């Protein structure tokens, strides 16, 4: 480099030469982009193509020959010709699932199993599967059968590509009804959650009410439990043996009511954080202007407060909508007969082994999730331009009556959250609800239940730690590459797109896509199927986006001058990265890792398709124990997850504080 500079005069255009440093950086970003392609893009592509894989009976592939009672054979005739002449099965009837059967005697209206007539069947092409009884046959040789055996012959479907699955989906009312159900639930829950969270956030930011710290602590509790837990709590509160059953006045908690109450519980903290941030940045000067214009409080609220927070409200609404519509645990536990999309995927895949239909429902679920995501991104872009450097932070004034209302509102919300968690702990300790209410630890004897026992709990902790460590490294290095390297523009924007995509992909869809992609013997990554590795990869990918955004925000705070300075001092970038970037961003890095840990402990949707007997997880155990009717042990395991996450949170706060005082001294003067 030095030689070049001596030879050339300084000019305005300099071409960035790829030095060794740049090569390392580019290969690093390539590795992480490759990770996202393998762990996200390819599985989704395979799933999409799976939804077009159809099964149908191809009658042209079979030929029959029938004898008379004396045993003289007639002319061979194909199944298709028989069907055409008799009009037995329409084209739609021939479409089926991979498990379909077509009874051969349906093509012979005069069939009688007592007659002496004999039948022959053969395939006309090498792939023409049929069953005699339950024995799979697939041969081009004639197979001769007497009448009584021939009635046990059924044709099997062959694979094809087309839109049949989608046609079946939309002609099955019980399936497409779920779209309406899912949207209904999501819209109602969103309206409720955003209103409640707005009230809570308003009280926290705009009043001088006491106990703010306590309320803030309680408000974030729902993040620490799997979404299955509020479902279980609602059964104990409002189920047929529930403590507060009469409150529902005869309505059943199993169904939309239960799903909506539970959804409000588990989405509340997410909405609260977003709305709180929006309310916190409001400008004192606007309120002073309103006051000097003698606007009433009510008018000020609608013309200043709400418009100021509108982007936060919209964003909170879309986040809540996505969380509810993609959630699987809650409707599974308390949905009763009210079908929603996420549960349909599970039912199709686990219940009926109809993987193709599962893929179709996944596509249906992907559409609203992506739509919500796109709108949210557009809104968020506008939010940034709203901030102004001259803003003066809002200072709430004393107003006892207002504070009392705030206290009541927050008190009610806190009571709701605490009673959901409290009832689970109580139910977990009761011997035999509702007939024997003495306390015991029987329900913690997980080894005697379905779901994998205590091992699943330790597996979950292992998954949480691995996800936190590996995920944080991948996410942070990826974000660093996007933010801090020069050139390579297309690669970087492709990477940015891939990094944002997981936010829009529901967990159920990701999990199913992983089955299709990784459980394929010809895939070189097939060996990770059924191991802890696939669970870690899936979880990291599932929660990639939030971590990525957190890391980007932190990196943006570091001056871009650091990189050129390091280069001019001939320091390799990794030295800068480890000596400056990582220490400066340590709070963000810790935030990302606790976020990944907590979510790995509570996630159900993606991993439900991927766990194996050796890698059972605590959250899955909650699901399976509830499924088997062991509701109290399910509550007990759910509470174990809660305590573990709470412990991790406390540890995180403690470590953060210590590290902050040691490494972030530069922040204070």
């Amino acid at each position, binding site marked *: 480099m030095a030689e070049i500079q001596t030879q050339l005069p300084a000019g305005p255009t300099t071409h960035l030469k790829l030095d060794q440093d740049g090569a390392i950086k580019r290969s690093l970003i390539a590795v992480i982009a490759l990770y996202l392609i393998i762990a996200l893009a390819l599985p989704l592509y395979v799933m999409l193509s799976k939804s077009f894989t159809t099964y149908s009976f191809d009658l042209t592939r079979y030929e029959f020959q029938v004898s008379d009672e004396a045993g003289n054979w007639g002319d061979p005739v194909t199944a298709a010709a028989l069907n055409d002449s008799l009009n037995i099965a329409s084209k739609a009837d021939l479409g*089926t*699932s991979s*498990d*379909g*059967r077509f*009874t051969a005697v349906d093509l012979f209206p005069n069939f009688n199993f007592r007659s002496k007539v004999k039948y022959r069947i053969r395939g006309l092409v090498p792939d023409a599967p049929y*069953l005699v*009884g*339950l*024995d*799979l046959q697939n041969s081009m040789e004639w197979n001769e059968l007497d009448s009584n055996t021939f009635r*046990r012959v*059924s044709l*099997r479907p062959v694979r094809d590509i087309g839109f049949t699955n989608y046609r079946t989906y939309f002609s*099955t*009312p*019980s399936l497409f*009804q779920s779209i309406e*159900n899912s949207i209904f639930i999501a819209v109602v829950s969103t309206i409720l959650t955003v209103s409640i969270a707005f009230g809570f956030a308003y009280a926290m930011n705009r009043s001088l009410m006491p106990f703010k710290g306590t309320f803030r602590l309680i408000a974030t509790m729902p993040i620490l439990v799997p979404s299955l837990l509020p479902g279980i709590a609602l*059964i104990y509160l409002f*189920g*047929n*043996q529930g403590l507060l059953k009469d409150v529902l006045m005869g309505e*059943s908690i*199993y*169904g939309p009511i239960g799903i909506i109450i539970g959804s409000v519980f588990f989405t509340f903290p997410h909405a609260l954080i977003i709305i709180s941030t929006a309310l916190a940045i409001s400008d004192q000067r606007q309120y002073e202007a309103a006051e000097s214009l003698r606007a009433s409080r009510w008018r000020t609220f609608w013309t200043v407060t709400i418009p100021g927070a509108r982007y936060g409200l919209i964003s909170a609404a879309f986040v809540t909508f996505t969380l509810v519509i993609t959630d699987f645990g809650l409707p*599974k536990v308390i949905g*009763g*007969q*009210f*079908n929603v999309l996420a549960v349909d995927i599970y*039912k199709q*895949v*686990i*219940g*009926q*082994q109809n993987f193709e239909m599962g893929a179709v429902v996944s596509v249906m679920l992907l559409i609203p999730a992506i739509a919500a995501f796109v709108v949210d991104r557009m809104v968020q872009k506008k939010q940034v331009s709203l901030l102004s450097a001259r803003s003066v932070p809002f200072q709430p004034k004393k107003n006892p009556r207002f504070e009392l209302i705030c206290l009541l509102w927050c008190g009610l919300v806190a009571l709701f959250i605490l009673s959901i968690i409290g009832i689970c702990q109580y139910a977990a300790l009761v011997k*035999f*609800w*509702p*007939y*024997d209410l003495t306390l015991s630890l029987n329900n913690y004897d997980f*080894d*005697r*239940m*379905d779901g994998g*026992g205590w091992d699943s709990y330790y597996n979950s902790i292992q998954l949480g730690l691995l996800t936190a460590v590996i995920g944080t490294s991948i996410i942070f290095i990826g974000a660093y590459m996007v933010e801090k390297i020069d050139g390579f523009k297309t690669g970087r924007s492709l990477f940015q797109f891939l990094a944002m995509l997981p936010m829009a992909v529901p967990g159920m869809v990701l999990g199913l896509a992983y*089955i299709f992609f990784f*459980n394929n*013997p010809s895939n070189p990554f097939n060996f990770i199927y059924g191991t802890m590795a696939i669970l870690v990869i899936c979880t990291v990918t599932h929660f990639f986006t939030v971590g990525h955004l957190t890391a980007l925000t932190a990196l943006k705070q570091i001056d871009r001058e650091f990189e050129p300075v390091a280069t001019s001092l001939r320091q390799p970038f990794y030295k800068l990265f480890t000596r400056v970037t990582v220490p400066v961003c340590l709070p963000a890095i810790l935030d990302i890792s606790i976020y990944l840990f907590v979510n790995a402990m509570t996630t159900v949707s993606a991993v439900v398709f991927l766990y*194996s*007997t050796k890698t059972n997880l605590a959250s899955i155990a909650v699901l*399976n124990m509830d*499924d*088997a*009717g*062991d*509701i109290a042990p399910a509550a007990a395991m759910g509470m174990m997850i809660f305590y573990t996450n709470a412990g991790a949170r406390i540890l995180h706060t403690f470590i953060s504080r210590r590290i902050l005082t040691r490494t972030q001294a530069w922040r204070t003067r």
Partner: protein
Amino acid sequence: MIRKTSILLSAFAAVLMSTSALAETELTVYTAIEAEDLQRYADAFNADHPDIKINWVRDSTGVVTAKLLAEKNNPQADVVWGLAATSLLVLKSEGMLEPYAPKGLDKLKASFKDKDVPPSWVGMDAWVASVCFNTVEGEKLGLPVPTSWKDLTKPVYKGHVVMPNPASSGTGFLDVSSWLQIFGEADGWKYMDALHENIAAYTHSGSKPCKMAAAGETAIGISFAFRGAKSKAAGAPLEIVVPEEGIGWDMEANAIIAGTSKLEAAQTLIDWTITPKAMTEYNVGYAVVGIDGIAKPVEFFPDNIEAKMIDNDFEWAANHRSAILEEWAKRYDSKSEPKS
């Protein structure tokens, strides 16, 4: 105490196995046997065959079946021990089972083995439908104890009956397929139409209705007898009703997966699973086992159960499964009325 002994036993077995480590074969066995029985069965087997180590892969019937089907072209299991016969029939129709006539086959009841020679699967014990009735809730709500399937359609039970969804639960499917066999197809569907009016919920798993009845969450749960007996033993106020028209059943059955590289060990295991000794182990929880004259009454099990078991046509059920489920889903899968 029992747990302690079993730990001791398995420790003992482990010592035995380590001494014969050279001759040891490991078998990957897929199963849906209840978690609490698994170790006991393995210990009993290892007492006779310490040289074969069993690596269990356990999950619910639906999941194990899905797993086996998914691995169709690349099987990971050597043996299936304790999976619903209807599931094994599906595997057989995919050509995934290795036919084998185990020693002692002739002692097995005729209904407990595949009719082909050599058979592709052999049964171990029967798993029979029953109705769990919560007597405390029944009294509170003024419900009489039902004695037949038809009773359950009476208006008095409206909203008090829970049954498993046949699409996701093996128990649910055996109920539906048995009603179609008992009442005939047309009347069977008519029966389910009437029953649907009384159903409060269709659950995903087959044991849940009985556990819900045990907890009083519902008054009546259509489930299976084994579950009812267990809950009753745990102190639930249950009466286990065997409907008089007859009851559907399935069996837990065993088979060798075609393509296993450890055929000899797999055959040894299958031989053992139908010995009288194995049957005695199954009898601890199940009242009906594969060999006549072995079973002793099981506590809290209804005693007339074997007489009430219908002559179940497994082949018919397996080959009509997808058509039955499609029809069922069309009629009942959504609480809200289908829009046309």
